[in-house]
């Protein structure tokens, strides 16, 4: 079976891989690029654990083909911190104990970051609906929402 050659940008770095046309972007990130921060929780776009941004747009990487990433810019959880400095959301998630097992955390962080870039001052309801596609089975969402609200406030005050 012939493979497709893809050149794309992941977290600012140029990346090349060969993929089967059936492979998803999630498969390619994990198995071809070696970035395992995005997780497969369902493979059907129902859990959000594989969330990344594609040209700045929040998507489930399990619902994008690896071949579709040609010429695009992909951002994953591995690109969220700046060097040693965690993004405020990452810091607040630790401070608020907004993760228990941590499997949904990369996807939720990516999704929450996309929200705050679009809307720096979301209401609790807006936040809950924006994150409705990110399942968390451990926390009941309470501390996640508090962490995002706190991070949003800090980011507003800093800007």
């Amino acid at each position, binding site marked *: 079976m012939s493979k497709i050659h893809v050149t794309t940008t992941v977290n600012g770095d140029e990346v090349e891989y060969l993929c089967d046309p059936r492979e998803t972007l999630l498969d390619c990130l994990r198995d071809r690029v070696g970035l395992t921060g995005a*997780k497969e929780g369902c493979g059907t776009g129902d859990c959000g654990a594989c969330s990344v941004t594609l040209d700045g747009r929040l998507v489930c990487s399990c619902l994008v083909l690896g071949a579709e990433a040609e010429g695009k810019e992909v951002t994953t959880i591995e690109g969220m911190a700046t060097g040693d400095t965690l993004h405020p959301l990452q810091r607040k998630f630790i401070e608020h*104990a907004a993760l*228990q*097992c941590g499997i*949904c*955390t990369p996807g939720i962080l990516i999704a929450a970051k996309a929200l705050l870039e679009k809307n720096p001052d979301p209401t609790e309801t807006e936040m809950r609906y924006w994150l409705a596609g990110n*399942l968390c*089975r451990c926390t009941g969402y*309470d501390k996640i929402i508090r962490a995002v609200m706190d991070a949003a406030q800090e980011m507003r005050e800093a800007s």
Partner: protein
Amino acid sequence: MALDSDTQKFKYIGTRPDRPDGLDKVTGRARFGADFSMPGMLHGAILRSPHAHAKILKIDATKALALRGVKAVVTRADFPTGLTGEDWNIQENVMAGEKALYDGHAVAAVAATSQLIARDALKLIEVEYEVLRHVTDVDKAMADDAPVIREGAADYSVPEGMHPNIVRYMESGRGDLEAGFAAADLVLEQSYKTEAAHQGYIEPHACVGQLGADGKGELWCCTQGHWFVRQMCTAVLGLEATQLRVTPSEIGGGFGGKTTVFIDPVALALSRKANRPVKIVMSRSEVLRASGPTSSASMDIKMGMTRDGKITAASGTFRMQGGAFPGAPVDVTTMLAFANYDIADVHHIGFDVMTNRPKQAAYRAPGAPMGAFAVESMLDELCRQLGLDPIDTRLKNAVKEGTRATFGPKFPPVGLIETLEAAKAHPQYNTPLGPNQGRGVASGYWMNWGGETSASVAIGEDGTVQVSIGTPDIGGSRASMALMAAEAFGVPYDNVRVNIADTGTLGINEPTHGSRATFASGLATVEAAKEAIGKLCKRAADKWGIDAEAVTWEDGFAKPSGPNAGEFPPLSIAEIAAEMGSTGGPISGHFESSPDGFGGSFGTHIVDLEVDPETGRSTILRYLVVQDAGKAIHPAYVEGQFQGGAVQGIGWALNEEYIYGADGRLQNPIFLDYRVPVASDLPMIDTIIVEVPNPGHPYGVRGVGETGITPPLPAVANAVRDAIGVRMTQLPLTPPRVLAAIKGRG
């Protein structure tokens, strides 16, 4: 075990530091089950039965093996024979033998050079089935005309003449039921049903296994308990226990569902055949079809109460199916159903029933939520019909220290009354309700567990502390262990490193289950620290030339215990550690036991919700969890357990269920239709931590993980009753069911 917490002021315990693994988990660096790879690794995939019940007549893998890149195919013929009991059950479950017993039952597996080739190869394996009659409902499975899942599966407890699908029977109780009911002013009888729910962990099962012809193997997997995995894999494959080393990855949720094996022995069997490591990752639909959801239940309850709210007698019959194998947790259901209350005359009957469903696995307080749904619903109805306050009535009947439990022994100190009082005092209990809104209250209990436990601590050359435990960190337990070690040694929290050790580096540990990790591994950590502290004191004593007994340990320093011991400047842990190579060698401490001082945890929940009278949909408005933690080591993660348990219970109460079609196939094997709560379904979940210290733990800890899922089922049902005026007796309370009840269609 002495309880120190009554007298002790804590320096670290009860604070909320950042978890030690926080950085890894917010940066994507933490390695979960599917994140492991090995050189030369193959990818495995499993062929699953599309039939609920079928004889396997023939499996022909010729075409699959001919596909380029396919390296091995295994069927049951590749597993040893002669196993008995639960070992056989697990072997039969991970790879079907003569029959496929449920939709999704594994019948063959393939290893290939890529995941896609492995999946393609599955389509080339030809299986000839003879489809048999099936049954998936517990009551139907007990009926005379039900198809027999397996002859001879019943144990000695089942009276003669019962259907072969009834595999365990139990009866327990005390007192005089007839007299008890006669003393009541109101006696109610009602049947209740709950549907099977899945743990719904977001991380599907994943493993990489390597097994050689020499019988030596290694396994990396996401599990709650790697010694359990070792025992099960070696039994299923006929290996010696210690020849398989199992290393746990970070684990993406388990809730009981990762205390057993589904794919691990298959990966090892494929590896043995292909002579290469094999990775298997389940898809979500495999998880839902073929891992271990909880039981469904059918229950009959009878309770009597006096006009002033005293429960006079209670009896219950509990029928539970646990899939195509024995093991439904009906023993726990019968044990805990009435355990909240002081009842003189009580009787339980339990049936463990087999159906054509996947082999059930533990799910958070396994067996407790079903019984709680039935009993706490009936208690609510008794209060309603007698015009009594549900919290006051519970207080009147609540168990306390010294009460003889409905399951036998006397309770040690427990906190049910404290949770009820705190719930009653919370403003939510008196918040006015609007139209179509209702309030529900329920209490719940989990007895917790100790279990086999090994831990060790070792002092680093700079005086920092390394803790090795065997219970995977599923919800922040590294932070709790580090806090307890910091407290015991008197060293800063950040100077403690907690490692989850593999099966090759510690003695046996039971899984992170039974709400035991913070209790049992915590206790072992503290006791191991005490042993190490004894050695640290000895080194100081030797240096000072005094008896070891004359040295005390305080805040990270060895000090002479009093003026009689002599005057020496205190020696810090770092100073002693720096010299340990020349003063007697490395310093460590170990502790092994099966601690039995686990104290149970009671909880009381209040839920306010609104039901749309035109669609039957319930919206949770407010939710309060009050629960006894004994002593909250890291309160944020205790609250997290309360909140997570409550929300799983809300899901089970409202929308989550296993839906089987007439063909016996699971209709909803994806998250789109297996509806776990999403963020927008919920309000904030308020919590109150009650602390009634557990005398069985040096710092008073009680496990807190499981109790939280027990009250929500009845609390939500009681709130819906309050809102719509109709008692719902079958879960989940889906909009079609609730609307039908509102419209009088029952």
